[in-house]
């Protein structure tokens, strides 16, 4: 039961203009803040009205501006999960979940409520009020409430971002489980790249209201089609570039020539490499003759519990401007091994790790 979306909605900053189709299963939606992710979900749910477009879910047309079809939100059978749960504070958990089951008999409704609570591991909360349960439980109940109406698509708007780390990973496991049994189009909007990657096989990247990338997650992470997509998927290192031969490019911002593994067919505008794929040559001298290996100086560093980010200047020692060309991320163990070595170090940008992006 695929979900097909072709919509145009004028917003103050830009026009949301997206066209895509999502099959059964989760589709992660990534994008910078204000790229239109939430607006897209709201349009599909029927809470916002696109200026033009068509939304088809299975065999039901939810929106067709040309044929003047606009199914109201209440008849769309699309479940929406909000970042801040949006549980009704004046109704207990059972009544919250039962809200969408208004037409059922009391017995049938109670059976359904028990059933979804079991599926979301929130059994026993029926009589509690939202303010009496934790954020994680509230989001489970919100998920149960959305699933209770047996929606034909599920929209999740940053469902984990209000939770702390521990609850977050528990809720993520819950979503994983839900996606396994709920085989319908599920759009998951998130800011967290790793979360999107773990939860969905396919990704859609939005940039200023347009689809910047759509496809299997591995492909989008390995070969981002544009700088924007690379940035949204967490890439930190870019340089303007032009092709010199079939697999050699000149990287203008890094002032070097690089061999790349891809065969270049289209004009190249940028080259990029992910911070954790930057390698350091073990020997401290003579490395310069190896391919894609350059001397570098440390400008500054910043630590996280297990890794360290090194800000590097290529080819010349740092000056007072604090300028750097590359950000490398290494595990602390590795850092301990070479932190004492004299500068310059030798950084290696392996051809397999580099990706080129067209205009």
């Amino acid at each position, binding site marked *: 039961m695929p979900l097909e979306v072709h919509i145009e909605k004028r917003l103050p900053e830009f026009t949301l203009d997206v066209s895509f189709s999502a099959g059964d299963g989760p589709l992660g939606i990534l994008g910078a803040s204000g790229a239109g992710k939430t607006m897209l979900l709201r349009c599909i749910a029927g809470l916002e009205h696109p200026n033009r477009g068509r939304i088809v879910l299975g065999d039901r047309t939810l929106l067709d501006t040309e044929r003047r079809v606009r199914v109201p939100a*209440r008849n769309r059978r699309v479940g*929406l999960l909000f970042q801040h749960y949006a549980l009704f504070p004046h109704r207990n958990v059972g009544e919250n979940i039962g809200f969408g089951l208004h037409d059922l008999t009391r017995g049938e409704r109670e059976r359904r409520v028990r059933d979804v609570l079991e599926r979301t591991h929130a059994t026993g909360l029926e009589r509690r009020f939202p303010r009496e349960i934790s954020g994680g439980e509230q989001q489970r109940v919100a998920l149960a409430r959305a699933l209770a109406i047996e929606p034909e698509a599920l929209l999740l708007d940053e469902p984990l971002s209000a939770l702390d780390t521990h609850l977050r990973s528990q809720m993520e496991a819950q979503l994983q489980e839900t996606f396994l049994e709920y085989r319908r189009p599920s759009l998951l909007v998130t800011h967290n790249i790793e979360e999107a990657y773990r939860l969905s096989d396919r990704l859609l990247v939005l940039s200023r209201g347009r689809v910047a990338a759509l496809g299997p997650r591995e492909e989008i992470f390995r070969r981002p089609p544009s700088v924007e997509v690379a940035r949204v998927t967490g890439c930190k290192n870019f340089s303007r570039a032009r092709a010199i031969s079939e697999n050699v490019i000149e990287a203008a911002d890094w002032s070097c020539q690089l061999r790349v593994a891809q065969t270049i067919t289209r004009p190249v505008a940028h080259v990029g490499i992910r911070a954790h794929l930057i390698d350091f040559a073990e020997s401290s001298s003579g490395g310069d003759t190896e391919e894609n290996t350059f001397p570098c100086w440390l400008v500054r560093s910043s630590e996280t519990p297990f890794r360290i980010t090194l800000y590097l200047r290529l080819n010349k020692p740092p000056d007072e401007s604090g300028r750097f060309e590359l950000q490398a991320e290494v595990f602390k163990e590795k850092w301990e091994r070479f932190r004492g070595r004299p500068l310059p170090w030798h950084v290696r940008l392996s051809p397999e790790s580099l990706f080129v992006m067209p205009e």
Partner: protein
Amino acid sequence: MAPPAATDWSPLWISLETSITATLITLVAGLAAATWRERRTGAATALVDGICLLPLVLPPTVVGFFLLLLLGRNGPLGKLLLWLGATVVFSWPATVIAAAVVAFPLMYLTARAALEQVDSRLLEAARTLGATEWRVFREVALPLAWPGVLAGTILSFARALGEFGATLMLAGNIPGRTATIPIAIYFAVESDDMRSAVAWCAADIAISLALLSGLYYWTHAQGPARWARR
């Protein structure tokens, strides 16, 4: 401090009946107007806001005068009513109309503030769960806005109870029919019946004070403990 036995009790009953009826009308009209207003934006709505709030700032005599023009024998609504076989001016319904019009802005303002405070995502969640707009209003918006709506109701009631100027203009002073407590006070003073005037003043103060302090107590007693399992 009851009025002397010789005194007619009717102003109390007229006042209570008038205020209760006017408050019920105001409640429905105020909620409807506030709900309507909440869904709209634009220049026209600002004009509606202005019109809704006018009775709050105009002297009640002006309101009464306009109502008289509107509902009198030669007024547009008055003619229609006459054709239907009814006259409103100088009758009990006139006291209700005057009180309702004057109390309306208080209801409208508080109801709007209360409805605006309701998290719009809750209303949206209700819609995605299949609720009709009526259910969204009745089962989500209204219960959540209820403290504010109730406050507006009590304020409206107190205002209706104290209404004098517009009532006098539109309903006059007909003992036993349109003479409410404030009107009874005015005419008691005018005819030098100070005992009655003082007694009615005391009654009016007592009712209003009880209502307002009750409201204040109630809104504070209902803290964050609401909607928790007891």
